[in-house]
């Protein structure tokens, strides 16, 4: 019995009137955890009851603590009939189980009912006493921290990034159980909410166990999803990246080593000094030594000792500095070899992170994706149904031991896809996949599983134990961290996986780079970008015949390659039209419906200075003899050229003129190539690899051979840029804007359109879909016009096809204001600086060419932690220390809780992570018209979900949610019956932040330039 959970019910307010006669309520509360229930006294005749209960104590296993939610039910006492439920509050007590997170949950929680929505609030205090040493309990994984953030959380430092963790649990969906026919919708919804809460808890615990096995202490980039498979069940699956993190903000341990003068100077060598003398450990760099002196040696010793007892997961072969050194040869090969061996031991060398510690990412290969069409089968397990029917108090069964069939099937499906991803990455000369994510689309019994990521070569230093010591003091900077390094091709030039058009890097002129780069990650912080970026979307619909089972699956898998191809072509065209050469944050979503497939790809286009200037788009007609046709073609061509020119101006893309002679290398035969390696398979294992390159053509040529192609060209030109003062991107931040001000507005917008069944042709469908997305964006720009100048960041579109003729698009994003004047200045200076930097980098490279560096490698194969990592967080720790007494939020009646899909809050420092927020809600109504129709219903529900998230964060003592995402928003309506139902799943990290203005004391000590660069590099972009 390792834990004691203590709960106190303080008071209620704004309760609904339950007794019509008196216009009052006789409320009491049931507090339930596991199978134990306590009750408060009935507080007679009040809408604002003051229970002030005793402490209800639950003595429970920590395993239960992790799995079970605390369930608080508010009821109206009725002497003669059954007590009426007012509503419930589910509290996830997981945040109380980590030592550094919240210590108490205390605050007002909205009382939620799945039929009536929020009905008043209840004030609750929750505490947990853990008795025993956590590490002794193998079934629980208390203490493993979870983060939704897909980068190393601020105020932590990554000691080791272990790698991929995944888990899934399967269960019968209560909505489809026999008992559902006799129970009320409320009971059914609550059973579902509770079940999913239990399954999430269990999933998180199991993932935690895997992390402990890997000797990690945290999961970063944790993404948990639900697959509502209907009759065949409910799957909860999660992926994440196991890490060992060190907290940096603990002032006691931190203060002596990090006093501000040293910090100030630290920034100079790393950010300003163009030529850091990194190889000497002499007197010129004493500060660096100092920097590292406080990187907790404790953690290293722990690793090295742990490696002795480590499980097979920690790779050892090829790691020794000696063995690697014997290989000699160019650095790249060595590095690959090492990393490879480090990663090959892992089943899947995948990372869900999208932003990385500096130096982590060595090369990026390109996007890899895999899709698979599967048929869902009903789960046959009568015993389980019986148990699940008992909704009063069931303990979730471990399905793995109970049913040998089901999760294994799902596991096998995913394993298959991951294997494919891995092999694609290998084909690109990469041994790791970063920015990895998985998704599903389900329609009836057909399910499309998708996975995608970015093939990459990683710096092995972060990936393993015990090898970091020794090199710490001596080698601090690596040439790998040059700003263009990640653009260089990881694959062998002579043995390319696909035809590609390579040039020498426009930055260092030493290495080959591709002409276009597609990735699923965020723009690396040290990348040099020219101008600003923009949101680029490819949208596509394809009609499909209605079919059953196998035939349906076959039809879908036949369509998929064409969709992928077209989506890719659209992206490429639009990118060129914008005059840009790289895509970041690429996310391709394929959604399956009864009679159509939808594809939506979103990404942020940028102009990478290291990559060549993109060529234009050439239009070619098929019938060159026709004069008027020719004229038309040339007219189109002119329009396209004008658009490109306009876009270049709009996004301030003015690459420095570099004549070819300087580059000094003949550009290889120009060919359009594609970096998207994909495959899809239907239940069988057949893998079709699609060559998306366009063969040997002088430029990117669009052939207009039929009306379809004409349409495509038109649609290219119809995308309107955002109104002036607005920018948009789907990455964390907008490349080229650095001066964010503190105003943020997170929002969710949902649109559903009904297609008229008459005009269902592919073209009409495409147009409808395109208009839907464009209009949605236009509406957003209009609504947020008061925030100009501002940028929509992390724009996340989700498409679903709830019914035959319905298309639903859900968008979540955050609008952030920026200071236009200052922003312009900084961009200018940063461009100048980066150009300067680029040139100095060249010189530097001449002095220490990459090949030369490898000579010194054998003795120190792994570059140590770069100081930037530490620096980045140090002001945070400092700030935290200094501002400890400052209250985190302004005193108003209800504390403001910010929500953002980003991992940071502009103009503020995150000082503490309080734990993960993962909530699932169902709302149902049988009086749709009375609630304002579908729009009124969903509007109110989303507002309620926001409110519940904010309340939970506030109760944890936080004032913001970062990395917030709405993972699911499943909306079903039946207007004829006046009914609707919606399921929403959201998650994020609860944090405490402190305004930077409160930290001014700290920053004012730094020279302004330094402050600037530390803001942009450390705070904003990570």
């Amino acid at each position: 019995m390792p834990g004691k959970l203590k709960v106190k019910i303080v008071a209620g307010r704004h309760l609904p009137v339950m007794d019509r006669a008196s216009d009052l309520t006789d409320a009491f509360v049931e507090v339930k955890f596991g199978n134990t229930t306590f009750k408060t006294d009935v507080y007679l005749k009040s809408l604002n009851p003051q229970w002030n209960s005793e402490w209800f104590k639950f003595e429970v296993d920590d395993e239960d603590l992790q799995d079970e939610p605390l369930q608080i039910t508010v009821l109206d006492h009725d002497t003669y009939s059954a007590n009426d439920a007012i509503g419930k509050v589910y509290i996830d007590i997981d945040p109380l189980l980590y030592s550094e997170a919240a210590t108490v949950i205390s605050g007002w929680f909205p009382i939620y009912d799945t039929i009536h929505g929020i009905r008043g609030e209840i004030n609750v205090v929750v505490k947990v006493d853990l008795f025993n040493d956590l590490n002794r309990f193998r079934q629980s994984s208390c203490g493993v921290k979870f983060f939704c953030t897909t980068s190393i959380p601020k105020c932590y430092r990554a000691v080791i990034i272990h790698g991929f963790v995944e888990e899934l649990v399967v269960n019968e969906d209560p909505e489809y159980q026999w008992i559902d026919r006799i129970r009320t919708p409320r009971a059914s919804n609550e059973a579902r909410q509770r079940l999913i809460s239990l399954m999430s808890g269990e999933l998180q615990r199991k993932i935690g166990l895997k992390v402990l096995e890997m000797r990690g202490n945290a999961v970063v980039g944790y993404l948990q999803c639900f697959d509502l498979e209907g009759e065949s069940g409910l799957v909860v699956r999660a992926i994440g990246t196991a890490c060992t993190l060190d907290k940096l903000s603990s002032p006691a341990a931190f203060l002596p080593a990090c006093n501000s003068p040293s910090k100030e100077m630290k920034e100079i060598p790393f950010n300003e000094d163009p030529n850091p003398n990194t190889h000497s450990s002499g007197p010129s760099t004493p500060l660096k030594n100092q920097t590292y002196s406080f990187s907790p040696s404790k953690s290293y010793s722990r690793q090295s000792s742990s490696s002795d007892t480590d499980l097979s997961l920690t790779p050892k072969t090829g790691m020794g500095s000696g063995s690697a050194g014997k290989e000699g040869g160019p650095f790249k090969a060595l590095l690959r070899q090492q990393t490879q061996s480090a990663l090959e031991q892992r089943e899947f060398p995948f990372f869900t992170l999208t932003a990385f510690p500096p130096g982590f990412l060595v090369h990026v290969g390109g996007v890899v994706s895999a899709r698979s069409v599967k048929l869902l089968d009903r789960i046959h397990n009568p015993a389980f149904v019986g148990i699940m029917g008992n909704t009063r108090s069931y303990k979730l069964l471990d399905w793995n031991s109970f049913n040998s069939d089901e999760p294994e099937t799902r596991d096998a499906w995913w394993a298959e896809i991951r294997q494919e991803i891995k092999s694609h990455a290998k084909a690109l000369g990469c041994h790791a996949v970063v920015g990895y994510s998985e998704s599903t689309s389900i329609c009836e019994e057909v399910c499309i599983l998708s996975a995608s990521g970015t093939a990459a070569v990683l710096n092995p230093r972060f990936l393993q134990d015990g090898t970091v010591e020794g090199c710490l003091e001596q080698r601090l900077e690596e040439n790998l961290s040059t700003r263009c390094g990640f653009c260089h091709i990881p694959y062998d030039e002579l043995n390319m996986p696909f035809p590609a058009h390579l040039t020498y890097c426009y930055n260092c002129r030493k290495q080959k780079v591709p002409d276009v780069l597609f990735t699923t990650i965020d723009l690396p912080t040290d990348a040099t970008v020219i101008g600003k970026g923009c949101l680029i979307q490819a949208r596509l619909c394809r009609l499909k015949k209605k079919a059953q089972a196998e035939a349906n699956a076959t039809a879908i898998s036949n369509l998929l390659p064409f969709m992928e191809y077209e989506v890719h072509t659209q992206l490429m065209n639009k990118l060129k039209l914008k005059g840009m050469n790289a895509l970041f944050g690429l996310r391709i979503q394929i959604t399956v419906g009864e009679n159509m497939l939808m594809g939506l790809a979103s990404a942020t286009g940028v102009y990478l200075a290291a990559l060549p200037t993109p060529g234009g788009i050439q239009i070619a007609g098929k019938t060159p003899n026709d004069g008027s046709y020719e004229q038309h073609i040339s007219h189109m061509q002119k329009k396209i050229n004008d658009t490109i020119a306009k876009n270049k101006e709009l996004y301030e893309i003015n690459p420095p003129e570099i004549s070819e002679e300087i580059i000094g290398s003949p550009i290889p035969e120009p060919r359009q190539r594609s970096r998207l390696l994909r495959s899809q398979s239907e239940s069988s294992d057949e893998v079709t690899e699609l060559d998306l390159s366009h063969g040997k053509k002088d430029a990117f040529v669009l052939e207009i051979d039929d009306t379809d192609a004409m349409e495509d060209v038109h649609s290219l030109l119809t995308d309107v840029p955002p109104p002036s003062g607005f920018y948009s991107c789907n990455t964390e931040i907008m490349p080229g804007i650095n001066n964010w001000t503190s105003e943020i507005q997170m929002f969710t917008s949902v649109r559903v359109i009904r297609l008229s069944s008459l005009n269902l042709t592919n073209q009409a469908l495409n147009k409808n879909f395109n208009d839907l997305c464009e209009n949605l964006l236009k509406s957003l720009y209009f609504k947020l016009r008061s925030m100009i100048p501002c940028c929509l960041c992390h724009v996340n579109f989700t498409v679903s096809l709830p019914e035959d003729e319905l298309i639903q698009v859900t968008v979540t994003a955050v609008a952030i204001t920026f200071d236009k004047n200052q922003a312009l200045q900084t961009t200018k200076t940063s461009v100048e600086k980066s150009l300067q930097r680029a040139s100095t980098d060249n010189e530097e490279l001449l002095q220490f060419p990459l090949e030369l560096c490898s000579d010194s490698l054998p003795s120190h194969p792994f570059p140590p932690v770069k100081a930037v990592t530490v620096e980045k967080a140090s002001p945070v720790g400092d700030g935290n220390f200094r501002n400890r007494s400052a209250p985190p939020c302004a005193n108003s009646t209800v504390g403001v809780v910010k929500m953002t899909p980003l991992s940071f809050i502009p103009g503020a420092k995150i000082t503490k992570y309080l734990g993960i927020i993962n909530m699932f809600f169902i709302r149902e109504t049988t009086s749709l018209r009375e609630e304002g129709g579908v729009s009124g219903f969903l509007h109110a529900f989303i507002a309620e979900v926001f409110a519940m998230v904010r309340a939970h964060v506030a109760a944890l003592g936080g004032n913001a949610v970062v990395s917030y995402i709405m993972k699911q928003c499943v909306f079903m309506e039946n207007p004829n019956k006046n009914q609707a139902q919606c399921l929403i799943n959201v998650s994020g990290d609860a944090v405490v932040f402190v305004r930077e203005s409160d930290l001014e004391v700290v920053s004012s000590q730094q020279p302004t330039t330094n402050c600037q660069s530390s803001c942009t590099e450390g705070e904003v972009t990570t």
Partner: protein
Amino acid sequence: MTSELDIFVGNTTLIDEDVYRLWLDGYSVTDAVALRVRSGILEQTGATAAVLQSDTMDHYRTFHMLERLLHAPPKLLHQLIFQIPPSRQALLIERYYAFDEAFVWEVLGKKLSKGTKKDLDDISTKTGITLKSCRRQFDNFKRVFKVVEEMRGSLVDNIQQHFLLSDRLARDYAAIVFFANNRFETGKKKLQYLSFGDFAFCAELMIQNGTLGAVDSQMDDMDMDLDKEFLQDMKELKVLAADKDLLDLHKSLVCTALLGKLGVFSEMEANFKNLSRGLVNVAAKLTHNKDVRDLFVDLVEKFVEPCRSDHWPLSDVRFFLNQYSASVHSLDGFRHQALWDRYMGTLRGCLLRLYHD
């Protein structure tokens, strides 16, 4: 392609002041969109009509959801569903409870019951204010009335506390509640020249001097009702009009004091007895509810109109009223000096405010 569902929910609730005004003014979404188009917003922002339509619908939906909370403004401050900065909350409340002068004119002094609600249609037609807006304003009056009706303490403070209104608006509401409670007749043609401000001013004076709360702030602190005892006592003032000697003496005192100071002296002298009788009788009659209701009609009829027909300038009216009320102190046979002062103190203020074209 038809839009089935179209929503936008921000973590901070977006409030568009212009749309809020249109909503408060009771325009339908279609009308509001048309009005916004006319305002030139499309040209300014480059938006399309469809965008405007969707935006307007969204705001209307938000306002509709907020309306329930606006009915009890403290709830708006404590609720968790809509995150709204405090300054915006104040704006929402203040604008929601604001009313149209033309509307309040029609309802002032009427019983705030359901019966009157039927008249809202007529008021709407008459004033050109949309029925929806009329209904909102009427319901606001009624709601405030209901809440503060039985409460003790300062009327203005009670309203401010329960509806979080600005001082100015709370005072106006106090006047409306006071008028509704005492059912003062304000609809007569004779009173058409008065503004709501005139009535509100009088109401405030009367609340200060003429109610229970005015005399004893410790006990029975009710600002709503006129002090019955005070009204009863005022019967005693009758003697000023009934006793011929007293009346003559009063007249001579006033005339002596004002001789040469008043431009309209002769008219005053000729009319003194009528005016004085009128004012005293108003006071003496206030025991009957019917006469209380007619207070303003009586004051205008008995004092304002006679003076106005003789073209008294306002300064003369002030001189006269001051002297008229002060001279009573020199009347030896009159014992109710305190009562007289309390009455005239209020009345003088009211009359001066009511005296205009």
